[in-house]
Structure formats: C-alpha cells, structure tokens
C-alpha cells in the first residue's frame, strides 16, 4: 500500500470535503482516515489516503490538488507519508 497525506487548510466554506473527495474518487484514491476541525472559522483537515491504484504520476496529483485548492480558496497539500513517518517515528 502506498500511503499519502492530504492536508487542507483555509477559510471554511460549503463543499470543501465534497470537492476534495470527488477528486480523490475520480483518481481511484481510497481514503483511509480523516480528521477535521474548525478553529475560529478556519478549516483544518488531514486525510490519510491510499494511492496504490493511481493511474497517473503522483507529481501530477500534487499539482492538480494544488490547483483544486486555489479554486476552492484553501491550501491543499498532498505529500508522501514517509516524510512524516521518518520524522516522527523511530
């Protein structure tokens, strides 16, 4: 399984999760875990997703999610899980 972390940060608005999830579904990316909070009107979400069945280059997904974030007006990052795993786990 190839896992990635999607983080979404920005001003809360209608349909953020819907739009992100639609994009993920269209690209056969399976969501394994979601945690989400809203602090003082700011939307903060982290998803752990599985990109094993991805049909395109992972770098393209990073670019497209960045674009999607701009459309919605939030900041979306998509990163391979290893950077967090390495940094926080022995």
């Amino acid at each position: 399984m190839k896992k990635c972390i999607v983080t979404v940060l920005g001003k809360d608005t209608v349909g953020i999760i819907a739009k992100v999830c639609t994009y993920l579904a269209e690209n056969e990316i399976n969501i394994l875990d979601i945690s989400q909070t809203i602090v003082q009107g700011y939307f903060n979400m982290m998803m752990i997703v599985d990109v094993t069945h991805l049909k395109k280059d992972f770098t393209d997904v990073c670019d497209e999610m960045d674009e999607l974030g701009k459309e919605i007006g939030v900041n979306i990052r998509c990163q391979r899980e290893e950077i967090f795993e390495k940094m926080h786990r022995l």
Partner: protein
Amino acid sequence: MINMYEVSETNKMIEHENLDVRTITLGISLLDCIDSDLDELNRKIYEKITTVAKDLVSTGQDIEKEFGIPIVNKRISITPISLIGAAACKTPEDFVSIARTLDRAALQVGVNFIGGYSALVSKGMTASDENLIRSIPQALAETERICSSVNVGSTKTGINMDAVRLCGEIVKETAEATKERDSLGCAKLVIFCNAPDDNPFMAGAFLGVTEADAVINVGVSGPGVVKKALEKVRGKGFEELCETIKKTAFKVTRVGQLVAGEASARMGIPFGIVDLSLAPTPAVGDSVAEILEEIGLERVGAPGTTAALAMLNDQVKKGGVMASSYVGGLSGAFIPVSEDQGMIDAVHAGSLTLEKLEAMTCVCSVGLDMIAIPGKTSASTISGIIADEMAIGMVNQKTTAVRLIPVIGKDVGDMAEFGGLLGYAPIMPVNEFGCDAFISRKGRIPAPIHSFKN
C-alpha cells in the same frame, strides 16, 4: 498511524521555519577521463558529467513535489581537477580550458554550482597542483558556476606554508580579477585544512579519490527550526536545552536521510552521506546567530558565544547521528557571515569581530567563512589569517577553512553585495600589523605530536 499534530508540525517547519534540504550533491569521479590530450580530456569530462548527472535536477524536483519538502540546490562535486588535468595541462591557461568545460557541463545539466576545481597540497605541490592554483583567479573570473578549493594542511601532514603563501596571493588576485562584482570570485574559493572527501556543501565540495564512481551526498539545513524549538524552552536548564536541540536535529536529519535514499534509488547511484550541518541563509529566521541569541546571548560575539556554539554544535551532532546511517561531510554549525542575517547584524552592532569568529571556529564547522575584509589587505596578511585557521584545524583534528573576500576598492564601513544565497556583508577590520617575515619562510609546519598514532 501518523496523527494530525505530527503532520502539522512537519508542515509548519517547512512553511514557516525554513526547513529544507539544502543540497543534493552528486559526486562524480573523473579519474576515468584522464587523457594526455587536452581536447580529448575536455570532451571526456563534458560527456561524463552530462551523462551521469542528466537526471539530477529532474529527480530532485520530483522528490521535492512528492514529499512537499524544498530542495534548494542541486549540485555536482568532482575529483580534484589538479589530478585529472595533470597529464594534459602544462600551463595555468590549460587548466582554465577545463574550467570552461565544467561551466558548460553545469549549465547543460542545470546545476548552479560544480565544486572540485581543487588541489590537495597538504604536504607538497606537484607542478600540476601549482598550475591549477595559479589558474584559479582567471578560472573564477571567466566562469559562473565553478567552485574552487585548496587543501593546504592536515593533522597527519602538517601545514604546507609554501601553499599558504601562494594561496594568500591567489585570493588577492582573484579579488582583483572579479573586482567589478565586489570580488565575488573569492566567495567561490575555499582554503582548507583536513578537507573531507564527501562534503556536499559549496564552495568547498569535491569528490575525494577514495570515493566511488558516482555518489549522492545530501546536506540538510534548519537553523530556523532549531530557533523556533528553543523559543519554547526559554529560561529552562541546560539539560532541557540540549534535549530540545537533539530532538530537532534528529527530525531535520531524518528528512535528509529520506531524500538521500530516494534520490539514490531513483538515480541508481549509491548513497554516500548526510551532512547534518546547520547551514544559514540570508533569509530572516534562517540564522545560526539567532539560535545563539535565543540560547541567551544579547548579540552573537558577546562573551559566552564560543561556549554556546560548542554546545549547539555537539548537540546537533548527537541528535543527527542517530537519524542517518552514514553521517559525513562537515556536519556541525556553519557560521558564514554574509549568509547569516544575525551575523551581519552583529558585525554592524560592533559585537562580532574577526578574532571572535576565529575562536568560534575552534568549536564548530567550518571556519572563517564569507568574511569581507578591506581590499587593501596585503597577500601576506591573508596568508597569515589562513595559517592561523589551518593551525586550529591541524591541532584540533578537525576541518577548518578560510573563505575571505578582500573587496577591492572598499574599506571598513562599506558593504559588499554578493547576491542570492551568498548574501551581503559589511567589511570587517583586520589587524594591521604585518606577518611578512613569518609568511616568507619556506617549507612546511610539521605535523603535531598527537598525529603520530600508529
């Protein structure tokens, strides 16, 4: 499983605290390019570099995107050119032709610096070594991307004072040759004692002859991350302070190890080392001086600076070594003046002097780095400063280096502007008493007694 807190901590380090991988440096051995025909040698060098390094930049960019971590520089280090050109180059001008080839190759593969226009002369100089050293001013003036270094001493061999004398003159000539750009050439020329074979950081990078045909070395950074972490332990004891530095250094180095492993696997080139140096940039919040001030100094250079730096350097190493399977290069805290806003401010405030910087180099990597001095400083005084720094390295069995920029036409009170990562620097005063008679002595300083360990 990774939690939200950990993810946001990492991303905060990247976005707000300037965490980055400073450089992926691809070491390329040019030993198999050696030829007695100069044109043929140049052709082989160009071909080898552009073949081995063709995917370096694109691989770096892919890793950057996939992990969301900036990789600031992609660079190349090569076998010291004095060895590679020995059979073909009969004059300094012949060596300059290799410099032009290297510059073209660097442009072709898209790297911003290529290091290894170097000579290793810690005990003696061959004719080829001397020709290369004498070609440095012209080579640095005529090229954009070449970095040059000369190793003039080591704990095992002592200090080659003939080379030290020559290097003082060469630094001065390089300054003259690039005087239209605030003597920028000198920012790309490092004089070493105990130079490491696997250093990924410019300007002193080269690939030693003990290394493999190609190797990936990675330099991490992260002064901003350490500074932010220390803000949380203000007023606490040394134990907590040290723990915090160690933990942070561990996290930073892990990123370097990850990137090094990925780059190595993708390019099919073995991984060499991670250099866990704290390398500042002129950006605000990316400063080693600010860490020292956070530890408790009013300004860097104040009494206590050397002790604070010694502790910082040691804790960075202790935290970093566990994070990587192979640590190497210089690994410590860098204190380049022009590349560190906190250092620049301390010089302006009158807190930081050349002499204090010299003391600081006894306890950290690397040496008197990126220091602008008056253009009128004599070659023998520059050689004297080099000799002092080399002696510190030789006796303490550590790497030391000198990267001084005598800015032609400028004096104390003026500013030198180098641009980009090289930054800017106020001209610092130099002790004006001479050392001509000392520097004009021929020969070398013998190796210290504690070097005889057999």
